[in-house]
């Protein structure tokens, strides 16, 4: 294990930014998001949750897929280059770090999404352990250890010192590049922090939430539950939960006429929207109840059925703090559980 004083952390950022693009939780306009590092950026490693999750780094909100020009019967297609430069995402929390493996199951399974794959290959994840969880956190329900996140490098911040440990080959390579700034140390401080944090996690209010009934639950029983009726009514049909969610992975593809050609791009989409999966004949989810149910059934039933029981949620709690009418996945889990 290595360490660096938080007073010198800027030097570490600068060192990384010298050879790689570096993304960090940076405060802009009063809110914190993952942005590329700039010299006078207001880095906020202390903030637990960026508004959007770190998935942006691999699945950007919007990206161009190709361009084309049509002249008479001739179509000229111009490919957009895949990402091929290494980049570092620094300060990823345990929940977001786990979300990447969930996204992998969708995007890296056949047929592989080459845009996503290229970013995953080039991306180095420097995760940061949590020491001050929020009341909205429930990552422990998905066997995520907030004190030991998944990542190429894992860091812990304790008493003004950042502790650094490489976990993968990519992580070791990155460590070597910045080795001159790091200092070898023992794990005592980190162990202390881990123990203290685990004690807090045990006391988190959502720790007591019952999710056992969902494991191996019958899909159609959940689907047909009458409780959806009471749950969906207040839903505004906005996309806040979807867009702040680290595991939501749906996208839409659109063509934009630039006046001198066409740009085909894809962007995030939300199953809460009325025009989600709109087809020539219309849509197959005509009511908000169906759309609302789709989102939660996907995370709690369809996804686990197709992925060895892994839920499509990492318990980051963003939907809890961001939903305009405070409806969220934990309320759904609790209500559906109830006396089923």
């Amino acid at each position, binding site marked *: 294990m290595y360490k660096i004083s938080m007073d010198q952390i800027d030097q570490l950022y600068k060192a990384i930014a010298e050879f790689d693009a570096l993304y960090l939780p940076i405060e802009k306009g009063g809110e914190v998001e993952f942005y590329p590092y700039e010299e006078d950026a207001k880095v906020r490693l202390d903030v637990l949750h960026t508004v959007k999750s770190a998935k942006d780094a691999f699945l950007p909100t919007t990206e161009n897929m190709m361009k084309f020009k049509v002249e008479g019967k001739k179509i000229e297609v111009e490919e957009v280059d895949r990402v091929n430069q290494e980049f570092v995402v620094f300060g990823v929390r345990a929940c977001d770090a786990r979300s990447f493996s969930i996204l992998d199951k969708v995007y890296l399974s056949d047929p592989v999404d080459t845009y996503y794959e290229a970013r995953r290959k080039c991306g180095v994840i420097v995760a940061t352990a949590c020491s001050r969880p929020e009341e909205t956190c429930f990552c422990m329900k998905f066997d995520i250890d907030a004190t030991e996140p998944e990542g190429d490098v894992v860091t812990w911040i304790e008493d003004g010192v950042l502790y650094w440990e490489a976990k993968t080959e990519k992580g070791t390579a990155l460590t070597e590049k910045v080795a001159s700034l790091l200092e070898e140390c023992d794990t005592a401080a980190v162990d202390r922090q881990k123990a203290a944090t685990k004690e807090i996690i045990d006391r988190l209010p959502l720790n007591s939430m019952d999710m056992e009934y969902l494991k191996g639950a019958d899909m159609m029983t959940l689907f047909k539950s009458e409780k959806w009726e009471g749950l969906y009514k207040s839903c505004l049909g906005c996309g806040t939960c979807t867009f702040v969610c680290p595991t939501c992975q749906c996208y839409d593809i659109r063509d*934009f006429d*630039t*006046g*001198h050609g066409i*740009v085909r791009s894809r962007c995030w989409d939300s199953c809460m929207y009325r025009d989600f999966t709109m087809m020539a004949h219309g849509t197959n989810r005509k009511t908000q109840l169906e759309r609302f149910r789709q989102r939660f059934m996907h995370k709690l039933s369809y996804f686990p059925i197709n992925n060895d029981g892994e839920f499509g949620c990492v318990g980051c709690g963003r939907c809890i703090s961001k939903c305009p009418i405070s409806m969220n996945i934990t309320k759904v889990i609790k209500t559906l559980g109830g006396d089923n």
Partner: protein
Amino acid sequence: MQVEEKKEFTPLIVAFCCNWCSYAGADLAGSNRLNYPANVKIIRVPCSCRVNPLFILRAFQRGADGVIMCGCHPGDCHYTTGNYYARRRMTTLFSMLDYLGIEKERTRVEWVSAAEGVKFAATMKDFAETIQKLGENRKLRDLRCEK
């Protein structure tokens, strides 16, 4: 060998003209052989009231450097009251653009009747000069539309 031509900025101006007065005014300017800048692109609308604020924004998106709307003089609207509504709409919209820090001189409303071919040509000339001085529209453009 290719010689890089240094292009001088010629603004692109979109003019929404109402069918009954201003478009006829433009016609008159034409038939009277009055000169007005060739980079003014006229879009004929049934009434100034037809101009939706989205039209103005989309003109900027597609590369316009200035947008001018022309209609019948207040009181002379072919549909009696259309331009009175348009007047309020454009005033509030232009004020909002200014509030967002977008140069207010890039937008203008001018009332031009069917008999005012001279005024039409003069207005367009003056507006084109204003936009020429302001330079390219950078604040309200869509990068995808740039060549």
